[in-house]
């Protein structure tokens, strides 16, 4: 009902938005003609394709290779597909059908010609989008998120890379690879989960700390995504996962600041601030967010998407040019930077489903980034400047000391965070809250040393001796 009300002028009225029924799509690989790749991840590739029996209708197919995957991963994939085939919302990317072909799993989905917001920024909007466009995209995303939350589903990987665009099909939140149902037996009796999943930069503090979390974790990620769309990258995006954890847990939440090129409205800044409350219970629900003035004022016109998507080359071409650019950049870079770039890129690609809290690996990655590293320093400091003073319960004092003009040593001491030996360097000023967090991280790492958080799939088989 609420969908119909506002859909008149937007997505569903497009000429190509003929609703296809699931059973119209054949479940045989030979009925599809594969075209160019339009997205890839560590475990799957997404290609544009034509469905031959349906007159060559263009669709997207996600092809996952299962041969290298564990038993758990296979079960995971089947949960993802089941969820994709039982959702029915304009702002969520569902599946038409799925089937296996050899050792691969194929998921047939609507083709979103605009690609993801992440790729769009990489190819054409490196400094992020304007506020009007962001408001539209976020509002649509929020509608999808509100639907998921109504069914007690937590997406767990909200980020620009999972927001897909299409001139006719509108905005769709994709990739349920990490999502989980709060109703399933994995949860405790309070209906909250405790597994560590998410992509580090977008991960809510309570998820990092492995406290119980629920749909509010998505709201945090949504706030980070808003910053990502505004600036062209997520806060801390150049940092290795270990540092992202520490920065997120230790410091005041990131917030939106005007930049040289762009001014943002107060309502936008406030919306982000409410999403990025460290205390999940203080964050609004998706439904409540939709009531904020920032979203209420959004007009539904096709031309918001059109104006951005119209003049762009095709998705396949853009993907290729992104890859070429990256190859060129890689070639110019120093070896150390290459590693970093690769690590950060991998981290993004891996996304939630793949996230594995292997502390040794985190440390190895963190070691790639010497503290106060050479070239990255400016970038690093810029992020620190973006940190704002939105205080919740305890005031956090470290904000004032962030100043280029301050004594160099003091500044460094302030932010030097290492995970070596599960010890975090002593800070000059530490609030009780900070201390507590640092201790928590230290203990978290001790636990992780003993056992990986994400249990590996090997099921111990008892040695059974028949006699």
């Amino acid at each position: 009902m609420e969908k119909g009300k506002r859909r008149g002028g937007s997505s569903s009225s497009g000429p190509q938005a003929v609703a296809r029924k699931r059973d119209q799509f054949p479940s045989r690989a030979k009925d599809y003609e594969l075209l160019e790749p339009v997205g890839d991840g560590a475990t799957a590739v997404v290609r544009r394709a034509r469905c031959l029996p349906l007159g060559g209708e263009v669709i997207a197919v996600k092809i996952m290779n299962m041969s290298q995957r564990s038993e758990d991963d296979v079960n995971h994939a089947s949960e993802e597909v089941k969820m994709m085939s039982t959702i029915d919302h304009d702002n969520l990317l569902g599946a038409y059908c799925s089937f296996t072909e050899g050792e691969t799993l194929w998921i047939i989905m609507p083709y979103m010609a605009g690609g993801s917001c992440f790729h769009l920024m990489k190819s054409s909007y490196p400094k992020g989008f304007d506020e009007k466009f962001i408001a539209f995209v976020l509002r649509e995303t929020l509608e999808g998120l509100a639907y998921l939350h109504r069914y007690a589903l937590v997406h767990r990987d909200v980020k620009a890379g999972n927001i897909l665009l299409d001139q006719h099909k509108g905005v769709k939140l994709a990739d349920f690879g990490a999502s989980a149902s709060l109703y399933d037996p994995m949860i405790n009796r309070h209906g909250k989960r405790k597994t560590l999943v998410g992509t580090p930069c977008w991960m809510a503090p309570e998820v990092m700390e492995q406290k119980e979390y629920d749909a509010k974790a998505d709201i945090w990620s949504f706030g980070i995504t808003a910053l990502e769309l505004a600036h062209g990258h997520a806060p801390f995006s150049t940092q290795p996962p270990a540092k992202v954890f520490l920065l997120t847990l230790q410091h005041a939440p990131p917030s939106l600041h005007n930049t040289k090129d762009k001014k943002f409205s107060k309502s936008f800044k406030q919306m982000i601030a409410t999403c990025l409350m460290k205390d999940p219970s203080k964050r609004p629900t998706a439904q409540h967010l939709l009531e904020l003035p920032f979203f209420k004022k959004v007009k539904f016109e096709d031309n918001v998407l059109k104006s951005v998507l119209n003049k762009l080359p095709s998705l396949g071409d853009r993907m290729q040019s992104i890859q070429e650019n990256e190859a060129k950049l890689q070639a110019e870079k120093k070896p150390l930077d290459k590693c970093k770039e690769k690590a950060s890129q991998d981290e993004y690609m891996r996304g939630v489903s793949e996230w594995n809290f292997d502390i040794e690996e985190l440390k190895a990655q963190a070691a790639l980034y010497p503290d106060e590293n050479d070239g990255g320093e400016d970038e690093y400091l810029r992020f620190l400047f973006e940190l704002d003073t939105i205080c919740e319960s305890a005031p956090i004092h470290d904000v004032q000391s962030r100043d280029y003009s301050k004594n160099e040593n003091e500044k460094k001491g302030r932010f030097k965070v290492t995970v070596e030996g599960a010890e975090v360097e002593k800070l000059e000023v530490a609030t009780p809250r900070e201390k507590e967090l640092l201790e928590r991280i230290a203990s978290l790492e001790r636990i992780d040393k003993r056992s990986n958080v994400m249990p590996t799939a090997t099921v111990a088989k008892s040695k059974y001796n028949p006699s």
Partner: protein
Amino acid sequence: MKGLFKSKPRTPADVVRQTRELLIFLDLHSGSRGGDAKREEKMAELSKNIRELKSILYGNGESEPVTEACVQLTQEFFRENTLRLLIICLPKLNLETRKDATQVVANLQRQQVSSKIVASEYLEANKDLLDTLISGYENMDIALHYGSMLRECIRHQSIARYVLESDHMKKFFDYIQLPNFDIASDASATFKELLTRHKATVAEFLSKNYDWFFSEFNTRLLSSTNYITKRQAIKLLGDMLLDRSNSAVMMRYVSSKDNLMILMNLLRDSSKNIQIEAFHVFKLFAANKNKPTEVVNILVTNRSKLLRFFAGFKIDKEDEQFEADKEQVIKEISAL
């Protein structure tokens, strides 16, 4: 009607009663084309009611469920045929309401009224509903909803036993291999649950139905051309045979030359995952202290090949148990 409900808060039993009335209406007027507007209105009302049942049972995000309300709801739900109506009418509901209904039915399976699980008693008296749920795998539209309801129902031992002993068990060999991955994997999850959850019941089923069951299992699942089917089947076989409650069945399985041949072929499968799972079953043949002659003969005939194979058989991760098992197998085969 709406005004009435606003003025007076309905009890959980009221919500169940009204849901039931609306379901009866929907059941009776399913085909009728006239009165479409009226039907639409009733459908909307029904969706609202089912959503309310869900929020009573699960809480609404802001408040936790209240035990007393859940008890009232459960009692009223099973006092009459609400579950039957809901299952029968499910295909007529919209997708969102189907999901709500599925979650309601799932939750009801765990609700206790004076320390008795009412749902279990109801299902025992209405076993034909399980037939309906299982046949859902033949209808793409409702397969996943019926499938998840079914998995909740077989949490009850008596209900799992009914399904195991029914002719439906044979149909699962088809459902598991349906071309649609989502439905096939749902059927496969149910199949696995049936064969692993209630140990004693499973052991009894496997002993009684040994011949046809393993014949189907070997020829259709372990020899399937579908990679995922084959992989999940060999894993399930290992889980079943390695369970102590199934030791009699396991002894029978590892005494067969035909079974051994199938497992030895799986050891040579192109997929490492399948090889490893096959090894966990193969080791039982080797470790058997009373190997029948035909099994010994095959092992002896292939001894050098097997030993060469195991010399190069490694897994990526370090696994002490695996290495110890492999050593044991090598020792057994060498000593034959």
